[in-house]
């Protein structure tokens, strides 16, 4: 069954696959940073000072008891449990936005601890459960 032609084709095919694999690994090494949809507050600390005032997306958890809202502005703290960043925002917020839940804010970075958000997205986590179960789990805590 393995004639010379077949063997040649196997070799040729594996060479193509290998080349594609290696080149794609290089491409993704280069693109690594650009593939991040958002940065965490810790990663924001490491950016260069000259790149402040640009538009960033920052993701993390909304810190518990940090939301303060007056009639046209909402302030809260996004945390990755190591570092924090203060967010102010005007506009409508998604339904799932809540304390202790994931959030992605997009807007102009004013300094490394403060961002004025243009858009807020709620980040849903991978947990799915019925509501009764959640109250049971809360009681258990």
């Amino acid at each position, binding site marked *: *069954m393995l004639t010379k032609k*077949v063997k040649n*084709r*196997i070799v040729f*095919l594996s060479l*193509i*696959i290998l080349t*594609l*694999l290696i080149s*794609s690994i290089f491409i*993704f090494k280069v693109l690594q940073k650009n*593939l*991040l*949809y*958002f*940065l*965490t507050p810790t990663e924001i600390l490491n950016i260069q000072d000259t790149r402040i005032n640009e538009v960033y997306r920052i*993701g993390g958890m909304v810190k518990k008891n940090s939301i303060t809202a007056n009639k046209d502005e909402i302030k809260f703290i996004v945390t990755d449990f190591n570092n924090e960043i203060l967010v102010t925002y005007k506009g409508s*917020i*998604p*339904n*799932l*936005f809540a304390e202790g*839940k994931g959030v*992605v804010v997009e807007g102009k970075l004013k300094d490394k601890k403060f961002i004025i958000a243009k*858009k*807020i*997205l*709620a*980040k*849903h*986590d*991978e*947990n*799915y*459960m*019925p*509501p*009764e*179960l*959640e109250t049971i789990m809360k009681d258990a805590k």
Partner: protein
Amino acid sequence: MFHYFSFTSVFKIIEKLINFINSIFFIILTIGLTFALVLSPPDYLQGETVRIMYIHVPSAWIALGCYSAIFFLTILHYIFKIKNFFIISKSIAPIGLLFTCLAIITGSIWGKPTWGTWWAWDARLTSMIILMCFYILYIISIKFIKIDSLKDKISTFLILLGAINIPIIKYSVDWWNTLHQPASINITGTNTIHSSMIVPLALMLLVLLIYCALIFLMKYKTEIIKIKKKNLFNYD
């Protein structure tokens, strides 16, 4: 070794299979939908929106599965030059495209109430769009290239190129920060999805898989008839 895959022996079975699937499909569909839409509980956070997941997740799995199947069939076709494998992958491609689009659309509908946006250019969503592009390119290449040897080479290369995308789709949520949540169901390790939601998910997967089999068989049958009519090459 591969004579089991010859057209004549396959053709006889197809008719029977299509009839069988037709007889059971609506019963399973009704059961699956009842579980997904009525019997399963709402989510503690998303509420009723979670029901979109019962279409979205199986569609995404099937989209990836179809591409992997085409990938392996294409490699076998390239090495052993078995025309039937090409016909099979040709018949799978539209199904894969359909379910990729379905996953993207349902995901978008889910994203609006949950995230607050229809679309975000994060790694998972973008790689899914790229998968859609590869399906479209593949279908175009086998439809519009008239020279057979050229068609084989270009479609094979497209499938190899697009195959890099498959692990990227799967692991994008682990490798990079994405808006899309990580997988809830792991074959090894713990599921972060409650068992009352896994049952309708599995049922809907079964329903969609049977639907896939049905449209695959119909498409495959048409392709075989086309070939027999043209009598392009010898079949045993």
